């Protein structure tokens, strides 16, 4: 902003943001978000028995190992889980990382079932099928999207934006209210666009990231505008042009913005690293949150000041014009002159 003119800077910011948002929107329109493990459709292989694996954990582990080896020989396995219903109806579920066609899965399941009826368990001399009457099947599951959650969050966001504008316009300035509003919308859209563009896996909790982006954007923008509000009251800043005054305030509030952003980013990065070990969904969620932090920091230090500079320049110019052509005072002067002119007649009449 220091070297470029305000308009050029704003144009550049808007072009970058618009390109990213439009590209993200197109990609979302065509492909949607890259789904994480909680929201993706999947094919699973289910291995159930007559209840034996609920009582013998060694048998269950051995069965799981054998099935996993067989399945991984052909498909990538995303998750393995064991469930039972109060000790009855026990089953192992192997969720595949890909969706497999019915015919292929039907053949595979038959193969696995015959393997289990021929493979012997340990040194018992009996096959798995003989011991536990094992049944193997597969399922294809299609995820149903939560539209109510999305549209209600969108309505809530719209209400929050109106409240934000009203609050900032009253407590700060109308121009700052407009800018905070634009910045909050921009940050949410930019975050979602980058998540779509970078194909970061995202599920239902992505709505939480969007809300986080909005709240963090509000905080950082208020931080910058809070500094401006304080600085604009100082006598030494009153003579500065809008651009210089805003530039100075932004420079001085940069440290505070960075501290908040670094604090949030540090926690997010650590949890993302944990996610690599603990579960990939945590990693992708935290990466999306990190995108939000970066977008908010950028907008509060670059985009918002640029927008507000333009607004302030215009409002300052309008105020100056108003001060130069003070119609009200002119009218008052004319009126006074008229009254002055009439007075001798009135006094004469009175006499």
């Amino acid at each position, binding site marked *: 902003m220091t070297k470029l003119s305000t308009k050029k800077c704003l144009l550049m910011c808007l072009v970058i943001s618009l390109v990213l948002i439009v590209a993200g929107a197109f990609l979302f329109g065509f492909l949607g978000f890259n789904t994480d493990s909680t929201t993706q459709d999947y094919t699973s292989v289910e291995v159930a028995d007559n209840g034996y694996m609920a009582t013998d954990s060694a048998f269950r582990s051995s069965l799981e190992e054998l099935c996993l080896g067989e399945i991984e020989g052909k498909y990538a396995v995303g998750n393995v889980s064991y469930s039972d219903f109060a000790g009855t109806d026990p089953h192992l579920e192997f969720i595949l990382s890909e969706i497999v066609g019915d015919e292929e899965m039907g053949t595979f399941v038959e193969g696995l079932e015959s393997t289990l009826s021929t493979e012997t368990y340990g040194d018992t001399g009996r096959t798995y099928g003989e011991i536990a009457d094992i049944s193997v099947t597969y399922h*294809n599951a299609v995820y149903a999207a939560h539209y109510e959650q999305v549209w209600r969050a969108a309505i809530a966001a719209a209400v929050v934006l109106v409240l934000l504008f009203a609050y900032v316009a009253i407590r700060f300035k109308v121009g700052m209210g407009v800018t905070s509003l634009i910045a909050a919308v921009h940050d949410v859209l930019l975050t979602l666009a980058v998540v779509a563009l970078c194909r970061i896996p995202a599920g239902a909790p992505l709505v939480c990231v969007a809300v986080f982006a909005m709240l963090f954007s509000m905080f950082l923008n208020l931080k910058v505008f809070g500094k401006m509000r304080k600085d604009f009251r100082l006598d030494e800043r009153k003579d500065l042009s809008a651009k210089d005054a805003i530039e100075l305030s932004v420079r001085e509030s940069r440290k505070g913005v960075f501290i908040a952003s670094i604090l949030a980013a540090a926690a997010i990065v650590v949890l993302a690293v944990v996610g690599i070990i*603990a579960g990939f969904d945590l990693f992708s969620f935290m990466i999306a949150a990190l995108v939000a932090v970066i977008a908010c920091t950028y907008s509060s230090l670059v985009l918002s000041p640029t927008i507000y500079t333009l607004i302030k320049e215009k409002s300052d110019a309008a105020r100056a014009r108003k001060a130069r052509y003070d119609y009200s005072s002119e009218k008052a002067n004319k009126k006074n002159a008229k009254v002055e002119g009439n007075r001798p007649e009135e006094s004469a009449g009175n006499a």
Partner: protein
Amino acid sequence: MGKKKSVVLIVLITIVLAGVLFLSITPTFYVSNVNRFNSLLSIVDLGSDLGDGYYTVYYPEGVISKSEYEMLEAEYEYALENGDSGSGSVDDPAEEYTPYKGIYLSNEFLENGTVLQSFQDDFDRAYEAIKSRFEARRLSDYSVRLQDDYTIRVEVPALDHDDAEADAVAQSMFQTFAYSGELLFTDATSSTASGTAEMDGTSENIRSASTSNAGDSGYAVVINFTSAGQEAFRELTSTLSSSDSTTLNVLLGDHTLLSATVSEEMDVYITGGYTQESAETIATLINCVIRDGGTFDLGFESPSYYEMSPTLGEHTALVVAICIGVLALAMLVFSLIKFKGMGLAHTYGFITYALAVIACISLIPAVQLTLGGVLAILLASAIMVSCNYYAFNNIRKEFATGKTLTSSIKSGYKNSLAFTIDVHAILVIAGLAFYLIATAAVRYMALVFTLAIAISAVCTLLVTRFYLYMFMAQPKNERRRIAFVGFKREETEDD
């Protein structure tokens, strides 16, 4: 503040904070053979991403699993071996069912190998209705999946940290949400039996259903009638009170949702003793069935439910808690190094904040912590730390202008007051708006954020400042006070 008073306060506050810290974060341990100590953190209700959950698979009547089919096959073979097949008590499942993906469909639903359109339509209506019931239940996170085209798999979080209670809640919710049929107010015990009087449970008569705390008798389901509904209900209850049959049942199909004894003409609501979760489930169901498309005719088998581990991994919640703890510790060490005495006040302030947040998320029943909630806590913490640093920097700037330390602290806080109040006020308002309007994960995230940011406001504006004054009373004179907060002044050093 006097020095002695300050010492007493420091000792007391340190003991209290240490005690509450112990209660909050100590790992669970046994205090006797039967009793164990549970810290506040260990009783936080977690969403299914961080904590355990339950899932079920709804099988429509006439659709069975492979295990069930194999069981029928075994029964048939046993009957054949024992010569029972001729009696007709056991049918050949191969003649009754046809394999379809991972399930078996009754031949009644098939014509020339293709599924009948009528069954397809019934199932689609039931799928949409069940999906909307879980959506309306406002769970922190859940998922509904269409499995093998004709079964429905639903996953929900555990709604209580007590395993037995969570089991019961999950079972009740899975069963209740599979009820088919129309809503009916009657004294009959099933929709097919004829009662003395009846009232339809449609949107013409019912506006909505909600829950309310009924004190000692648990929670109540409150049904809000329309004016036409009030009149119809008054007529119904006056008929029942004057007849021999005094039990009013609220039926959904053949299932009894609510039951009440009518002794006199009743007005606009009926209540009964329930747990909060079961009352909310029934209220949600009533709200859904009075909407268009909220009911269906297809019957479902009583579902089995299964426990499932957290979707983010078995011990993710613990690891996340440890990481946040380590990060907080690093931040506090940094604060102590950078701001010295003020950093000490910040440390006490932040610990108070953290303990208050832990107490809120563990003791308020409405809170369920999900990944979104963790993000909300991180954000509120970052805001709190940032506001404290802002105040400390203002104090430093004021001191640099030549003011006394006491005056600098006063002015520093005064300068940061407007910003701190504005930030917290707008964020509390935003959090509340999200909590009141949004649903699912965002609602729970907003609740955690609103609580955390409100606590942050109190801790930043009052508690940390109080701690700073408390610690500032300790050094003997102004010079030592200045050294205590890590400031430097030439004149003071010369003195």
